[in-house]
């Protein structure tokens, strides 16, 4: 009879599926897992272990399995370290064994096993230190030996989704306990969700989520669920869905996981958990072996034996480690009490086990050992309640001696643990280890190859805390997180330290319960959706007209608009020159705009800016600078007074959000008595700056009811009217030092306005310019900006703005100006720099030293803030922050850029290079 039974199981025998493992073709049925199908085909070895590269087989039947890890799929869909026990079989599935070379059967690194006596836990801490330079080579070898599967090298073609959901009751686990809890809760009229890693029964009025793991408990009743798509799912369906479920009440019915027993060579393929062997029979009609031995320390083995026998598996013997007066009887099966398995044999599978009686100390008596032939050894070491999510939720555990396990001990609000997860209905068990002196390795963690000897060594060397044990030996740190290993580790450590298990403690449970795909966590936040992109009302025009873009926060702003064949720097120089000589327009819609309404607005502005705002007249604007309370410059911009109680503030692009939050904070928390309403209106307006000596001419060419002559619209004035039928506001504000206006229209008319401006300027040779020309113009004019000059460490005085600091009122940050650190002496000042030779570019990001060579101890005099080529001065210029810079005008210093080996002698000059008197902007 083949290993597959003719009847039974939850498989569909009418749907035969073909799959390949390590290049060979096999068949299975719909409803199989990869593991059950491999077992049915007699495949025993499916991979190699982490450290010693020992053959590894199928050990469990679900997420607890530490060892049946394969690579699923090819190419971009390859998925390393996949647990064969949880892969639903589908037609055409391909899988490969891992961690072996050249093949699963003949693995070179398995030779390491021979050296293993010199490679105990933590061996790498003790060696490879000498000679120091060799470490990279040693490390290279260690890294290649370690790792498990291979990561894919191509972009993941699949789609992942994320969903927010809410329910009254979440039941985790669809076993008998979970099902009845779900039914009860639904009967009470609750909105109930039931999730299970497998495919549970589906009661009425319950939202049942199959193939769904509750992987983590987070704050606010939030549970992370990972739903795996079924192999039958539609092609465009997401591969996995990560649910963010908020449940008012949670029932944890996650069951218990069977524990292995510890003895020499307990890792051979063919050795598995008894519960797994039963699952393969029940669910898949697969016999995990033909002739079995069961080794146990509890009563559950006997019922299991009957079921195995019923399923057609010969059970040669039950080896019960317990010292019991009475022996259970099972027909056709030898039952031995007070015996243990002390060794196993077989290459690429199991041939026989060696058993021996135990002495009074629980140690095996080697003289009395004997062999039993079998190809399946079922381990029945008791059950460990799955308390992971309970522990993540902050629940505390207590050790229960009768079942040799940790169980929930304290209440967690909103979370109820029931069934086997709570330690209920679990058979009494004795200790999971019976020590033998057989020479073979006694594995505790089958994935990370941690043995009982490693645990004992750790204890001997002082790594006695259970957390030290874990980190020194890597016990429980594999992809299964020690679901079958940790309790046995605690038991062995307890023995080594001569401590009861209850006093050993347990390592911290952390999410995820089973590993969660990175793509699922990323969900929809991939590609263009990684972060929002903002568009100005004129974005399309910029795109259609060849702008090169630069990121500015969430925006992408035109950097420059190259003409055909023009280099970037030529384009920028042309744009900056054209503005100074003629007229240019630039999209400044990204600047933050805030509407302020209310009777106390003037008072509020007065407290927010360093300069006074009470005298600002309707129809006028004022430039202002804001500080943080620690005295550092926070932002700058203009405020226009629209009406008696209505003002509009502009902020820098990057700070639009932070300034709004800053204002709200002071308004709501510090000065709640002020009656001011704030609304962000950045998105309502499209704003174009028109700058250059011909700016007024351009505006006058428009079809508008506004007048732009100096008397009608003076510098820092604003007017409202219409342009070509569009309502508009025109502000006479300049950041370039030129005659300039900002034209604001409702956003939906932005592009039309932009086009009208270009048309009106056509005869004037108007050009659009980008942010790089804007930078060039403002450096020529000596304007600081947030970032390069005011980098969060600059005071108003540093930037040369002390004249603006009002002496007549208090304002945010004023008090800090009296702190010793803000005394002017020794601070960095904003200055201009010119190359001494008049032509060498000043390296951006250069440090300023007062000598030509950089001795390591050289005191730094400052740094270059913004360096540009000025087309209007026809030479490189820069702004810089220099210690006591204002006192050093005319001095020669050196700009050092060791990154690209440049040293440029520079002269410190006043930062305003063009029109220091401001005649052009008032023209």
């Amino acid at each position: 009879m083949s290993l597959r039974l003719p009847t039974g199981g939850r498989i569909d025998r009418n749907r035969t599926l073909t799959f390949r493992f390590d290049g060979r073709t096999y068949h299975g049925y719909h409803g199989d897992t990869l593991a059950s199908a491999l077992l049915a085909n007699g495949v025993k070895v499916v991979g190699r272990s982490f450290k010693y590269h020992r053959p590894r087989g199928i050990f469990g039947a679900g997420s607890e399995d530490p060892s049946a890890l394969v690579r699923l799929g090819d190419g971009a869909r390859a998925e390393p370290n996949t647990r064969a026990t949880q892969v639903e079989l589908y037609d055409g599935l391909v899988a490969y064994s891992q961690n072996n070379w050249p093949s699963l059967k003949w693995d070179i690194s398995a030779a390491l096993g021979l050296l293993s006596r010199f490679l105990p836990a933590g061996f790498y801490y003790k060696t490879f230190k000498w000679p120091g330079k060799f470490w990279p080579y040693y490390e290279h070898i260690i890294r290649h030996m370690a790792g498990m599967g291979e990561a894919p090298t191509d972009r993941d073609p699949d789609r992942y989704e994320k969903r927010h959901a809410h329910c009254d009751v979440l039941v985790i686990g669809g076993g008998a306990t979970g099902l009845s809890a779900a039914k009860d809760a639904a009967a009470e009229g609750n909105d109930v969700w039931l999730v299970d890693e497998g495919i549970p029964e589906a009661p009425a009025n319950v939202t049942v989520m199959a193939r769904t793991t509750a992987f983590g408990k987070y704050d606010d009743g939030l549970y992370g669920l990972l739903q795996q798509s079924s192999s039958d799912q539609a092609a465009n369906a997401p591969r996995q869905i990560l649910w963010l479920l908020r449940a008012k009440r949670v029932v944890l019915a996650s069951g218990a996981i069977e524990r292995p027993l510890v003895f020499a060579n307990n890792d051979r393929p063919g050795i598995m958990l008894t519960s797994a062997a039963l699952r393969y029979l029940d669910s898949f009609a697969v016999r995990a072996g033909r002739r079995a031995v069961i080794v146990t320390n509890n009563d559950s083995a006997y019922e299991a034996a009957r079921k195995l026998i019923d399923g057609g598996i010969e059970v040669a013997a039950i080896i019960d480690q317990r010292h019991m007066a009475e022996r259970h009887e099972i027909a056709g099966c030898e039952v031995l009490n007070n015996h243990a398995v002390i060794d196993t044999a077989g290459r690429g599978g199991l041939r026989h086990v060696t058993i021996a009686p135990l002495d009074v100390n629980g140690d095996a008596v080697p003289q009395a050992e004997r062999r039993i032939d079998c190809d399946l050894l079922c381990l029945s070491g008791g059950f460990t309640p799955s308390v992971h999510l309970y522990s993540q939720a902050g629940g505390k555990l207590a050790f229960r001696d009768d079942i040799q396990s940790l169980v929930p001990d304290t209440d967690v609000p909103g979370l109820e643990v029931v069934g086997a997860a709570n330690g209920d209905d679990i058979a009494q068990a004795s200790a999971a280890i019976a020590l033998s002196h057989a020479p073979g390795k006694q594995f505790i963690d089958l994935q990370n190859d941690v043995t009982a000897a490693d645990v004992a060594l750790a204890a001997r060397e002082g790594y006695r805390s259970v957390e030290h044990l874990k980190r020194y030996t890597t016990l429980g740190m594999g992809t299964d997180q020690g679901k079958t290993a940790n309790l046995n580790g605690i038991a062995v450590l307890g023995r080594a330290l001569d401590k009861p298990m209850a006093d050993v403690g347990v390592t911290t449970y952390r999410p995820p319960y089973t590993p969660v795909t990175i793509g699922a966590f990323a969900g929809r936040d991939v590609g263009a959706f990684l972060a929002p992109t903002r568009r100005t009302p004129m974005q399309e025009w910029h795109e259609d007209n060849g702008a090169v873009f630069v990121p500015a926060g969430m925006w992408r702003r035109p950097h420059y608009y190259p003409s055909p064949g023009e280099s970037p720097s030529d384009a920028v120089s042309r744009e900056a020159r054209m503005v100074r000589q003629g007229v240019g327009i630039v999209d400044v819609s990204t600047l933050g705009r805030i509407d302020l309404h209310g009777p106390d607005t003037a008072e509020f502005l007065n407290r927010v800016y360093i300069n006074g705002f009470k005298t600002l007249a309707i129809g006028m604007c004022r430039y202002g600078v804001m500080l943080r309370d620690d005295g550092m410059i926070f932002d700058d911009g203009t405020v226009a007074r629209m009406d008696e109680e209505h003002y509009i503030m502009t902020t820098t692009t990057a700070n639009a959000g932070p300034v709004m939050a800053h204002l709200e904070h002071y308004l709501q928390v510090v000065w709640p008595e002020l009656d001011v309403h704030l609304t962000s209106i950045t998105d309502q307006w499209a704003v174009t700056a028109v700058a250059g000596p011909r700016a007024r001419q351009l505006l006058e060419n428009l079809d508008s009811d506004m007048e732009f002559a100096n008397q009608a619209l003076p510098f820092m004035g604003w007017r409202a009217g219409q342009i070509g039928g569009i309502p508009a506001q025109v502000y006479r504000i300049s950041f370039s030092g030129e005659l300039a206006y900002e034209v604001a229209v409702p956003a939906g008319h932005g592009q039309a306005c932009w086009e009208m401006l270009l048309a009106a300027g056509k005869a004037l040779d108007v050009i659009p310019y980008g942010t790089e020309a804007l930078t060039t113009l403002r450096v020529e004019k000596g304007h600081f900006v947030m970032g390069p000059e005011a980098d969060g460490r600059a005071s108003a005085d540093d930037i040369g703005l002390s004249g603006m600091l009002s002496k007549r009122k208090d304002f945010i940050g004023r008090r800090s100006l009296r702190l010793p650190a803000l005394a002017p002496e020794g601070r960095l000042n904003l200055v201009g720099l010119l190359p001494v030779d008049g032509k060498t570019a000043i390296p951006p990001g250069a440090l300023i030293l007062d000598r030509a060579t950089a001795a390591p101890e050289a005191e730094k005099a400052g740094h270059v803030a913004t360096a540009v080529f000025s087309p209007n001065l026809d030479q490189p210029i820069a702004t810089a922050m220099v210690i006591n810079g204002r006192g050093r005008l005319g001095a020669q210093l050196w700009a050092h850029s060791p990154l690209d080996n440049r040293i440029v002698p520079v002269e410190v000059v006043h930062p305003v290079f063009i029109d220091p008197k401001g005649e052009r902007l008032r023209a």
Partner: protein
Amino acid sequence: MSRYSLASLVRHGLTGHRDWQPAWRDPEPKASYDAVIVGGGGHGLASAYYLAKNHGLNNIAVLEKGWLGGGNTGRNTTIVRSNYMLDGNAKFYEHGMKLWEGLSRDLNFNVMFSQRGVLNLAHSKGQLETFRRRGNAMRLNGIDAELLNRDQAAAFVPGMDVSRNVRFPVEGGLLQRRGGTARHDAVAWGYARGADQRGVDIIQNCEVTGIRRDQHGVTGLETNRGFIGAKKIGLAVAGHSTQLAAMAGVRLPIESHVLQAVVSEPVKPVLDTVVTFGAAHLYVSQSDKGELVMGGDIDGYNSFAQRGNLPVIEHFAACLVALFPQYSRLRILRNWGGIMDMTMDGSPIIGTTPVPGLFLNGGWCYGGFKATPASGWVFAHTIATGQPHALNAELSLDRFHTGRVLDEKGAGPYPWQH
């Protein structure tokens, strides 16, 4: 105490490893010590080690409330670098880098310091210029730094997506080749073993609950294992500095925040360096065991819970997939958090306090693992001599009283923004 070497490993291998000695003793606390360090993390242990080694003190103890290295030393993303811009930080961290380079041999314990390079990616011209300034400052401080353009960055990190049509294209980056990673636990264990060998009492499961002082200064500590006298006390309790300082009546410019980290399932070597994504906050490297180790921003609110929430993890994952779309199918294996001292200027505090005999080592924010050797070195100096070392002179607590803060990011007194 036997030395660790290949020879000793072979010798013990032949005898079944039965004769290895404990890496450190487990002594009962004495009634009093010349100096007591509170906190058995890397910093506390390194301080004790250098107090013994450099300053000849041996009547000293380290008190740890839990297990050695169980604080942030045991839960960080292990990045070691000295790529700081401001002098006060740069010189200090660079001293640390030099100590790292000889640490395994000095401790006779392989801390697996791996100088695989730390690459900070830039995604705009502006960001690259900021890096340029930092790189130049580093070079002038004698620290290695290279500015990579996009092609060089792509060559340095094979497999990274440097295409133009992505949300945050890579424009280049700042590389410190001498930067890298180290085996975090080994650092704690190596220092503990070294200190123990020099006579330091390392006392685990000993929680400090109070600090006693008289008019002259500190006199000792209340602990769950009784009173322990001490002439000098050094606090190195990352995350809990405010609590311990408060026991002596000292208030600090520090808030505790949670920083999370995650590891993926282990895979064969795919990433040979440390990469940080500049457009949002993510750093990633691959451990010698094979996991991708990732960290990023703090959760952003005060916390002592040592665990965080999902939004941050979702963000790590999104950033990783942006940089390495091929890692999307790998899985997160574990996720944890650590409680960190966030200072008001983002820089650490090491030095004296207003209470005579009480010294503070804290405020490490995101970055104290790399500081471990340097921090121990200068803290030992400060405790032994009562005066700060030249390297921690600028890292004094006093700087907040004058406003002379050391704000690398210019973010101001909002710790959750540093």
